[in-house]
């Protein structure tokens, strides 16, 4: 970005480090920020700072939260016997939006992907096993995306969990192959939660 004043070039370079933001988008965002009012800029800065200060991992379910345990984990109304295992916080959010699920979550923080160097150790699996040991969980729903990575992760967890006794099921494939959970519309998602099948 040689053609911009140094502070703008710096902002463009920072923004283009974001996922899905290419150099063109970064440029457009930066120039937009230049035009924003001081107040809006302050709000943006404080929102970013607040996220960094307040958001942490829930020590029970590994979801992102501003308190520990998180809202779901501390809600007495939720069904503690059923755990829905998802890859990322966005997947838990998508299922919450569908309002079809009243159990608990467990967020793995990724999926198995040997080619990218991601193995079981990189996922929050030991925390899940610790929760299983407490004995209140009787059903586990594996809700990873129906991709090769998501399926391999579900199969791996299924083998690990089954000897511990709970009913283990996989989200029914009401979703198009290769689709992301957070792209699925809420009706499809609610339906596939109902239609889950035993592993």
């Amino acid at each position: 970005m040689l053609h911009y004043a140094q502070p703008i070039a710096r902002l463009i370079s920072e923004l283009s480090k974001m996922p899905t933001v290419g150099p063109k988008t970064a440029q457009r965002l930066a120039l937009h920020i230049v035009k924003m009012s001081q107040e809006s800029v302050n709000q943006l800065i404080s929102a970013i700072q607040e996220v960094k200060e307040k958001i942490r991992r829930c020590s029970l379910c590994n979801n992102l939260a501003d308190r520990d345990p998180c809202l779901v984990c501390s809600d007495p109304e939720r069904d503690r016997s059923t755990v829905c295992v998802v890859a990322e916080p966005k997947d838990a959010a998508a299922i919450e939006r569908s309002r079809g699920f009243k159990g608990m979550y467990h967020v793995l923080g990724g999926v198995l992907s040997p080619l990218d160097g991601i193995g079981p150790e990189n996922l929050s699996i030991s925390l899940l096993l610790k929760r299983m040991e407490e004995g209140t969980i009787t059903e586990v729903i594996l809700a990873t995306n129906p991709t090769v990575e998501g399926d391999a992760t579900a199969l791996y967890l299924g083998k690990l969990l089954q000897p511990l006794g709970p009913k283990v099921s996989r989200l029914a494939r009401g979703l198009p192959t290769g689709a992301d959970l957070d792209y699925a519309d809420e009706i499809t998602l609610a339906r596939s939660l109902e239609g889950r099948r035993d592993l």
Partner: protein
Amino acid sequence: MDSSSIPSPEGWDLRVLEVTLVELLHLELENFRNLSRVSRSFPSGLNLVTGPNAQGKSNLLEALFLLSVGKSLRAHREDDLIQWGAPFARIVGRTALRDGEQTVEAVLERGGAFGIRKTLRINGTHCSRLSQFVGRTPMVHFLPSDLDLVQGEPFRRRRYLDVLGAQLHPDYLRELQSYQKALRERNHLLRTDPRESLLQSYEILLAESGSRITLRRAALVERLAPLAARFHREFTQEVENLRIEYRPSIELEEREANLLVEAFLREFARSRGQEIVRKTTLTGPHRDDLAVFVNGKDARFFGSQGQQRTASISLKLAEAGLMEEEQGDPPLLLLDDILSELDRARTRSLLAHLPGSRQILITITEEEKIRAMFTGPLSTHVIRQGEILAC
């Protein structure tokens, strides 16, 4: 296209795509290899693409076939398809369907994480997945290297089955893609982290996906066999008998998917130790082959070069024949340089059997060779230095 029909282990979505090509009407090219700018209509029947060597004849057919499967079977790297020094290449085809017309478009741009970005569109709608694009414009591409289909390595014959399978059933392509992904993951684990619990997760995926591919290929070969046999008899004036047999990586006694999955799993369990030593997966569709017999003898090992090449042509014609049987319309035939390899009798006989296809593009350096033998409607497109001359 119905993207929600997920193949289940019990069955395959056997619906054939309904929209099929009836005819190519018009082709537009921009910066595709040495073809800087082409805008050309193609009538029905036989289209001769002629001109001296290295003028762009094969490139024209390659561009057309890319509209069929979204890939080139000829290029080593996709960015080779873009004209040297140009930022992008664009291919737009207008085709006549049984009811209406269809526009198929492929754009290749330099840049991005993989060095190239590809955009495929049908009637202006972006196809985010290859399986939404493939099969909408059925074609059979006969490359000079296809003359080695019978004599060459097994991967060529697997690719032959796959290109056909993918054009007939979008599920087949999706299945192949996930199979290949899972295979790469497992092979990587075999090299770097061969823990049984991890390997097994991928074995289940490979077994499920592999059994569906195996059954599909078996069904394809079953349908191809009589067609290939018939073409070959006609083609050799009843002198030669052609028989093809699917050689899957695993005994195919059971045609039921569930039992085949079990068989794959047993095979993985049996050979896992050896696979860890050899650092690669030894069973699965990636080890399949197609055996070709001429007059009862395995043509790959005992056929003369002429017999192998003739059998290769029969296989490609069977591919076109099966597409016509399944879809009701003949695919567009793209024949690159195959006539230069045949003697007069076989050329004459091939030409006599082509007109089952409504539209054919043939590249040839000396068009007189065909004109003398072919009496049907015929149009000529002369290519010089990347341009089609007006005529």
